[in-house]
């Protein structure tokens, strides 16, 4: 168990710094489609001499600019994405990973935050417009039916139910009393599986008439008003051996 919760702190020890970049949805989708090794594009960092603010920009690979699901071929993802750099601002952001085997590791600390913005371009605008149109469609749609539905109404008798009823009657007839011993066997095996049973369930299982079954149950079991809604039957304590296999027969 000591393994389970243990967090691997190597990332922190090495002081690995990572960037936290906010990426637009469509770009993330494109990245998910990256083939092969997963190369999606190039990032360019331009440092202006010694004075600080480096300009970072990301260029999407050509092949990933096509967006699926949009018929209009002129609409494609823009390629150029400058990054807006932001500071972490005193807040401490760490990155931890959870592996599929439930191992936790602390990968590192965020040293830079950035936002990936698309460079404004014609294709981007079109893309956005499409997106907006999509999202503005209402989720629910009212549609008028040209032909009214006439199939479901007014049966004389409920046909399915009738069928089932007749079938039941044919099949089962009246339940016949089988031997007491057999019934007991059935009951005991049932009670091995579960402790509490409803009388109806027992009737289903044993296929005995209710009165006969109740008589038998009165012998070997107790009727439980358990405080819960159902009143259930359970075996008497002397008949109960849930751990051991032996049963005391009557």
């Amino acid at each position, binding site marked *: 168990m000591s393994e389970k*919760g*243990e*967090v691997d*702190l190597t990332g*922190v*020890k090495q*002081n*690995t710094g*990572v*960037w*936290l*970049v*906010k*990426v*637009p*949805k469509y770009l*993330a989708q494109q*990245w998910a489609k*990256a083939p092969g*090794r*997963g*190369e*999606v*594009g*190039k*990032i*360019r*960092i*331009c*440092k*202006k*001499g010694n004075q600080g603010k480096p300009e970072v920009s990301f260029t999407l690979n050509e092949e990933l600019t096509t967006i699926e699901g949009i018929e209009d071929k002129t609409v494609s993802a823009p390629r150029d994405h400058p990054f807006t750099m932001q500071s972490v*601002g*005193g*807040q*401490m*952001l*760490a*990155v*931890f*990973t*959870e*592996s*599929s*085997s439930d191992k936790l*590791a*602390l*990968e*590192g*600390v*965020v040293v830079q935050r950035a936002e990936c913005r698309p460079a404004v371009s014609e294709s981007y605008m079109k893309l956005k417009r499409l997106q907006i149109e999509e999202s503005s469609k209402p989720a629910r749609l009212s549609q008028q039916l040209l032909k009214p539905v006439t199939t479901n109404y007014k049966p004389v008798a409920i046909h399915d139910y009738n069928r089932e009823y007749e079938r039941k009657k044919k099949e089962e007839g009246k339940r016949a009393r089988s031997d007491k011993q057999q019934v007991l066997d059935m009951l005991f095996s049932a009670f091995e*599986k*579960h*402790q*509490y*049973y*409803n009388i109806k*369930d027992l009737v289903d299982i044993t296929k005995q008439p209710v009165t006969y079954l109740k008589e038998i149950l009165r012998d070997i079991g107790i009727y439980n008003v358990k405080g819960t809604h*159902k009143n259930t039957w359970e075996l008497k304590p002397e008949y109960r051996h*849930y751990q051991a296999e032996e049963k005391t027969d009557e």
Partner: protein
Amino acid sequence: MTSLSGSGPSTTEYTVRVPKNTSKKYNIMAFNAGDRVNCSSWTQARMERDMSARRIYGEEETPESGAGSEFGKKQREEARRKKFGIVTREFKVEDQPWILKVNGKAGKRFKGIKKGGVTENASYYIFTQCPDGAFEAFPVHGWYNFTQQAKHRTLTAEEAEEEWGRRNKVVNHFSIMLQRRLREQGGCEDDEDETEKGGKKKKKGGQKGGDLRLHDLDDDLEMSSDDSDSSMGEDGESKAKAKKDLGKGKAKKKKQKSHDKEAIEESDDGDYEGLEVDYMSEESSSDEEPANEKPSKAEEHPKGIDEMSESEEESEEEKQNEEEAKEEEEEEGKKTPVQVENKKKKDSSGESDSSDDSDIEGETASALFMKKRTPPKRPGGRGSAGSSRTGSRPGTPSIDSASTSSTLRAAASKLEQGKRQIQAAGTDSPAAKRLKMEPSSQSPVPSGKSTPQPPSGKSTPSSSDVQLTEDAVRRYLIRKPMTTKDLLKKFQTKRTGLSSEQTVNVLAQILKRLNPERKMVNDKMHFYLTE
């Protein structure tokens, strides 16, 4: 990695890879800036999901699973759906908070709660730089905000609600937790223990008692530098005193202070009647009572500063009332000089008119000065409550004791009315002057009303001894310096048969004629004659 060497600025290019099949899910662990968490200082860390919510969600799973009824679960679910139309939320392990323990048992504890909505509209990626210079981007699966778990004790919901209700009254917040801790220790707190700590803490007035008796305003004001090392008896005494005062104050004061401790409000007026209570001195008479009261009143209501000061006010008044009925020696300087004066004079009952005069003087002075004056009550052995500390002390028991008190009062009130009609406000001297001026214009009228009078002196048909004559006035003025009010008092309307207005006019005329000398005594214009 290709690097383009620009002319001035340097540009480097890196490839970005998004690895496809990562078994690891990346998450963000966000800490509050104020917590000043330094990950590198962690030696070891353990983190697990907080599964405490599972009980709530998965209650159905526990009963009767091994030995349960067969068809129970399905039926229950169906029934629930049909009845309530509720779909119970699943217990998702993914969404449960994390519990992070750093540096073992003695270290810090954090709870990380998942932040919703992070991945809805935009994705976060973690860019790490690989040894080969390329960037690898991993999508962030979830964002957890980690907050430090308090190791100190906090109030439960009920206690917090209670304290919230008392928030305006409680000043010393430290003692709240202290109370709770001590309560948990079994409820047998030592006074010393507790008050010691209380004393060491805020010395502001209004240390809250919580369940227990504590310092009073008394302590805080007068013995503010004392620690609770002062004896318990004293504490108890002073507390009891304040309690008593409060009790009286409550009984008397109109405004009801609602406290949840009913013990205070149950006390009646008569409970404290026989007590001689002194604010500051340490009288033994009150010692025994507090000792008894202390255990009975197990919980003292908390008092804030305002309350304390109010109680101080009330108690002061109560005490004043008591004292004037009983003792005089314990007067404090808190009373205004007028009151003191009044009391001293009153208590020497059966004295000369001067006492009455001063009483009435006080009354009429207040009337003249247009001060708010509650009508003098008829106390049963006590002074009237309700008077504020502004200095106007209306009638006191000693007045009632005098037989002429009622008449005096009536006279004074009538006088006051009369004077009010004549002048708006003012001190004695302007009053006197106006009296002289105005009646002169009005004199024909009243004189017309009354029986014809000789110009020199006015003798009116009267059935009593005192008559408003010049001689009478002269006699008085020779004997001792008097203000106009005093003079007026001498010539009471019931005795002279004149109305107050008439009296005033006549007196004014007499004074004009006599032209007495003036002297300022106690800021009041007194007239006197020397012959």
